[in-house]
């Protein structure tokens, strides 16, 4: 009585009084918030649920019999034919994110699932589409990406701490994108401030893995190529241990355990000395 596998979950429905299994399922489709519509293999709309009316703005009377391509924005003429081709081959199209045009002209973001509809003999006779409105979701995703970018901008500052010395504090972990941005910022700042020394401070780096270590080495190398000297500061025992375990040789890189110690080295390179005002008064020569 029921068509093969499609209504396989309906055994329990036969017990519900006054409602046949097919009518029950039909009402589920009708009440869904998602757009659910059936079409022929040529793309002509056969059925159109309430969710579709709401999402697309067209009533069922307006859509049944019309080609689904009226919903497609003009810049995607090949999309529907391509989807129908796959369905004709028995394929399902899942979570296909695309755009469609509502009756009022608004362009919306949707996620489509398109499956073949088969008759009793198993022949594919049409396609069924479920479309979920993901406009809100997409907006949130984009806002999140914006936020992430802002955090990125904020957390990779490069500061000039003295004439000729810049400090770049690493905060948090370094992924490839941050590392790249960090390197560019640092090198630009060095050129801009005509600095001779760059202090790369890793006090704020909780864990250092191979990739982060690699980025660090790359940064130090590019600073050197530019013509400034890089000093790695804030190397704590945990980091030193990890670097040693990773077999990374920092023999040709100046390192210090604290930023202050690094600054001392920087001043030395610049031939500068800090003296107290008393020393000055006593006539000691400095700077």
């Amino acid at each position, binding site marked *: 009585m029921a068509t093969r596998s499609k209504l396989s979950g309906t055994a329990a429905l036969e017990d519900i009084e006054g409602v046949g299994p097919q009518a029950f399922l039909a009402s589920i489709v009708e009440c869904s918030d998602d757009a659910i519509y059936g079409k022929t293999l040529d793309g002509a709309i056969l059925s159109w649920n309430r969710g579709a009316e709401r999402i697309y703005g067209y009533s069922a009377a307006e859509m049944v019999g019309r080609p689904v391509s009226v919903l497609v924005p003009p810049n995607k003429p090949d999309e529907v034919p391509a989807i129908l081709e796959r369905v004709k081959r028995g394929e399902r199209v899942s979570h296909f994110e695309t755009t469609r045009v509502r009756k009022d002209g608004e362009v919306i973001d949707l996620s489509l699932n398109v499956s073949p509809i088969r008759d009793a003999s198993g022949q594919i006779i049409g396609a069924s589409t479920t479309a979920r409105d993901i406009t809100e979701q997409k907006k949130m995703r984009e806002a999140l990406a914006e936020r992430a970018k802002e955090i990125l901008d904020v957390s990779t500052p490069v500061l000039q701490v003295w004439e000729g010395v810049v400090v770049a504090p690493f905060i948090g972990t370094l992924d490839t994108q941050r590392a*790249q941005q960090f390197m560019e910022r640092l090198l*630009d700042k060095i050129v801009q401030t005509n600095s001779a020394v760059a202090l790369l401070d890793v006090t704020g780096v909780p864990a250092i893995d191979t990739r982060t270590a690699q980025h660090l080495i*790359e940064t130090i190398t*590019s600073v050197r190529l530019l*013509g400034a000297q890089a000093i790695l500061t804030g190397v704590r025992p945990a980091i030193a241990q990890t670097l040693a375990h990773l077999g990374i040789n920092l023999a040709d890189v100046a390192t210090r355990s604290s930023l202050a110690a690094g600054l001392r080295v920087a001043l030395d390179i610049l031939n500068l000395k800090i003296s107290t005002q008393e020393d000055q008064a006593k006539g000691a020569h400095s700077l």
Partner: protein
Amino acid sequence: MTNQNISLVKVRNTLLVTMPADPDDVTVTTLQEEVLGAMEKYRPKGLVLDISSVETLDSFFARTITETSRMVTMMGGQTVIAGMRPSVAISATQLGLTMVGTFTALTVDRALDLLAHPHPRRRIR
């Protein structure tokens, strides 16, 4: 047509060589020949290679520079590479063209300073 001219000037006891923007392989090879020729003629204490106009650095260029630097050292001079652009430094690093053993300076000015007063701590350490 890009200007492929290398400018080579003797300033006091130093050779100042300025590379054009996009040096092709011929220009790079010419660089080495001209430098060695000038080294012989003038016997300068140092060579400043100004690459501040160079926008791209390929492996041939990097190798030739490193080689030339070594040759200059063998002839009793000291090479400093000046004015590498940040974008070039980043690509060079990522390509592994690190030119180990060469001295570098932010500007030609600094390079001349470095040659005049070699600071022991300025060594790449």
